[in-house]
């Protein structure tokens, strides 16, 4: 049952990340999606991949994004 909830949270998180105007929030929501995918990998019987995805998707990618946003501009234009 939990996997369906995680899937829905992951997909919703990705949509929410793309509609944010504040880019820092978008980066954090990307991390949430990455974490959800890591959890799904665990459920889908791939624990070794889940470890890597948890580090890359939930920590490294959002940090990269946050660094870029810090160096550029925090609030995106209207789109």
């Amino acid at each position: 049952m939990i996997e369906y909830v995680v899937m829905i949270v992951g997909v919703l998180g990705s949509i929410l990340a793309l509609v944010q105007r504040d880019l820092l929030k978008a980066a954090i929501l990307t991390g949430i999606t990455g974490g959800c995918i890591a959890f799904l990998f665990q459920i889908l019987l791939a624990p070794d991949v889940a470890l890597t995805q948890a580090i890359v998707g939930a920590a490294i990618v959002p940090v990269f994004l946050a660094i870029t946003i810090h160096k550029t501009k925090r609030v995106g234009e209207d789109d």
Partner: protein
Amino acid sequence: MIDTQLAALLSSGSFIIIGLYAAVFIDNIIKKIIGLSFIEEGANMFLIALAYRTDGVVPIFLPGMTPEWFASNSAYPLPHALVLTSIVIGASTLAVMLAIAMVLYRKHGSLSASVILGDKHE
């Protein structure tokens, strides 16, 4: 209730479609890059979902299992090995793109793709 594998395949497909939408229609370049990372993650999740086996076990051969039982019950480990490589490649490509985005922002003072990646130099 649909089974887990089908649900995982569907959600990987929706990640790919959301990412494609973002890459095509959203103007902000950072959000474009976020969308591209979603495409990458969707493709990875598709491979992992292919390897899943309903009521299966993790593909680690533990003491007490017979080879026949393991072969008929474990998930398929080959895609796992492939996805490990693919995740790392995706992260490094993302890092390169973000670095270029920083340089472009310093040059143009904007993050809008139609401004910095348009056709005005021709």
